[in-house]
């Protein structure tokens, strides 16, 4: 036998035998070289951390479950996570990094709407693919984005009419002063007007403000029937304690409290008494699916203070992504969007059945009305099933035909063709 043949045999022994000897091993070896990369940009420190650390944990939980069950099309899911520190410039920095350097297949990113609008142009520019797993003020019509969180037509058009019927038609809005608070307040204004009510007042609070004596007095002066609190971040959450100690004693309605910041767990009762929140998930929801999810979460993260709606949104988003990749047989965004366009991307999430709306790439949700009692226990006076994110589609956003990569509001709807 000549030397070259020997060398060839040795090379074959080193590389080829594995393939011939054990097909399973080769598959694993191949897969390990070729994972599906999922970028995770969430605030693990800073002002928003309390509400968002659970999102990272939920993504880890889903990824572990998927990897244990054999990955996505045999490829394992690899997380590339960065701490965005509740800082918009960090989002831009890390979004560039995951798209350009880490070359991830998909990014799960963002809590505040300010951070989403900071990174969204970068996703568009580098032709990336991002999931925003957070409730927000609605209106993002962008083919590069999938939104799994709830939007105003799901949270406000259920909540505000219920509150007006129960407590009265004079409404006061106290909102965080940035795009989320301003646009959400616009929605509240619109829905109050449509239902024959009147705005008793509105105040916008800069992020990071923690002292509310004057705002409390303004509210008492306006004498509303209930207060819509759209306060964001841990500093602004000081409002509830201060309002309770000044004995404001008005019912409150919100799309963000309890479901995100679990204020009912953090503050001493009864400061959140009579707070009504529309949310698509919180850990108190009493259904077998929800209990199962909660148990799995607690088993993996026993010290998690609360499993909130954004954790559930993030968890189900990983499974939705898996389903879409498997059906598209590709991680390419355009292939995945062809699957979305079929209009039947649905799953049984911990909250109930959810589906992606092809026109807006937003999600239908089961909306639970959560009421906080005097002892801070949660009850659910009402549930709305399968509420669709209809506004964008009705207003003229249709991503199956045209991708404007823009955000719209009731006062700034999509241009009519």
């Amino acid at each position, binding site marked *: 036998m000549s030397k070259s043949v020997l060398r060839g045999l040795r090379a074959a022994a080193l590389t080829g035998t594995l393939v011939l000897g054990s097909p399973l091993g080769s598959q694993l070896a191949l897969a390990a070289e070729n994972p599906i990369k999922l970028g995770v940009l969430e605030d693990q*420190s800073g002002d928003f951390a309390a509400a968002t650390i659970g999102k990272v944990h939920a993504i880890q939980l889903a990824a572990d479950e998927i990897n244990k069950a054999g990955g996505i099309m045999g490829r394992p899911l690899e997380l590339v996570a960065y701490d965005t520190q509740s800082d918009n410039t960090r989002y831009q920095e890390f979004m560039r990094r995951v798209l350009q350097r880490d070359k991830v297949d998909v990014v799960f990113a963002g809590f505040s709407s300010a951070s989403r609008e900071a990174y969204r142009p970068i996703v568009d520019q580098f032709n990336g693919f991002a999931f925003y797993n957070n409730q927000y003020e609605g209106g993002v019509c962008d083919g590069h984005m999938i939104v799994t969180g709830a939007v105003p037509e799901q949270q406000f058009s259920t909540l505000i009419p219920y509150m007006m019927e129960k407590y009265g038609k004079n409404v006061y809005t106290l909102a965080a002063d940035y795009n989320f608070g301003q646009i959400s307040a616009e929605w509240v204004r619109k829905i109050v007007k449509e239902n024959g009510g009147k705005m008793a007042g509105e105040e916008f609070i800069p992020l990071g403000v923690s002292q509310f004596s004057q705002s409390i007095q303004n509210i008492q002066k306006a004498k509303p029937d209930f207060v819509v609190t759209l306060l964001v971040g841990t500093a602004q959450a000081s409002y509830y304690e201060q309002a309770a100690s*000044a004995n404001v004693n008005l019912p409150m309605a919100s799309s963000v409290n309890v479901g995100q910041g679990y204020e009912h767990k953090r503050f001493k009762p009864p400061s959140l008494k009579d707070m009504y929140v529309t949310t698509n998930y919180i850990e108190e929801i009493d259904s077998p699916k929800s209990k199962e999810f909660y148990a799995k979460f607690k088993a993996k993260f026993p010290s998690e203070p609360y499993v909130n709606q954004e954790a559930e949104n993030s968890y189900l988003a990983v499974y939705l992504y898996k389903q879409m990749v498997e059906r598209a047989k590709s991680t390419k965004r355009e292939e995945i969007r062809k699957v979305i366009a079929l209009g039947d991307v649905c799953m049984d999430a911990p909250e109930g059945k959810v589906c992606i709306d092809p026109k807006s790439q937003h999600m239908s949700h089961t909306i639970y009305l959560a009421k906080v009692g005097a002892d801070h226990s949660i009850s659910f006076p009402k549930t709305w099933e399968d509420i669709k994110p209809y506004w964008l589609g009705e207003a003229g956003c249709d991503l199956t035909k045209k991708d404007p990569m823009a955000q719209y509001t009731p006062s700034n709807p999509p241009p009519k063709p």
Partner: protein
Amino acid sequence: MDIATHVFSALYQFGDAFAFLVLSACGLAVIFGMMGVINLAHGEFIMCGAYVTAATVHAGLPLPLGILAGTLVSALVGVVVELAVIRHLYDRPLDTIVATWGLSLIATQGTLIMVGSTMAGVGTPFGSFQVGDYSYSIYRIVLFCAALGVLAGLYALFNWTRFGVLARATIQVPHMAAALGVDTRLIYSLTFACGAGLAGLAGGLYAPTMTLVPTMGATFIMEAFVTVVIGGADVFLGTAPAGGVLAVVKSVMTSWQGQLFGQIGLLVAVIIVVRVLPKGISGFVLRERT
């Protein structure tokens, strides 16, 4: 609604803003105003006081003792920080910015990692009272009284006690004080601890009214710095009038146009005062006097 209701409500809002400005600033007035250490970790001393207060109250201590514990622990942490870091940087004021900024990042992130993203609140004591159409929190009046008490205490400490005289002498002309037999290193340590303890006191007092999170110190820091900057070097003659002026501006602007304008008004007032009185209000008062 009659005049008395309006007057009371305006006074209450002024007192509330005054208490917040003075209590957040008094510790910094000692450390930055008097000692000249630009302490960017001031907010984290406040957070330390608040956390210790809440933890001891959860452990069963009554609130006043909890606040005392928060104050003392912050003062102790102040001693350690002074010995380990600040002591070596007294003649390098710009380097203290970097060092204390680093400390503040370590403290915030360390608390996040060790204690978690939030801590359960302790609830505001005392309830509320009614004047006209408005109801008010009694604890806010307590905070106002505490602010006045702290100012009086600081005045007494630095003007009437031996420690106060030694501290002022040491900081004014350290070599002369040392030549006269004063243990200047000890005095520096104690003064720094006093400032840190006052920050802890502010944290303890505000702990029942606020969200307890690792970043809570940041909500105090802007108010603290602007009060000290326009107050100038003297702890009492600076902080008290500065707190008064800024509280008027802030409460009037906030009640007129809301929180955003309250903040804008505060910062505009600071720019004007610093432009007109470069040595701060206390510099102006003391110059008039001499």
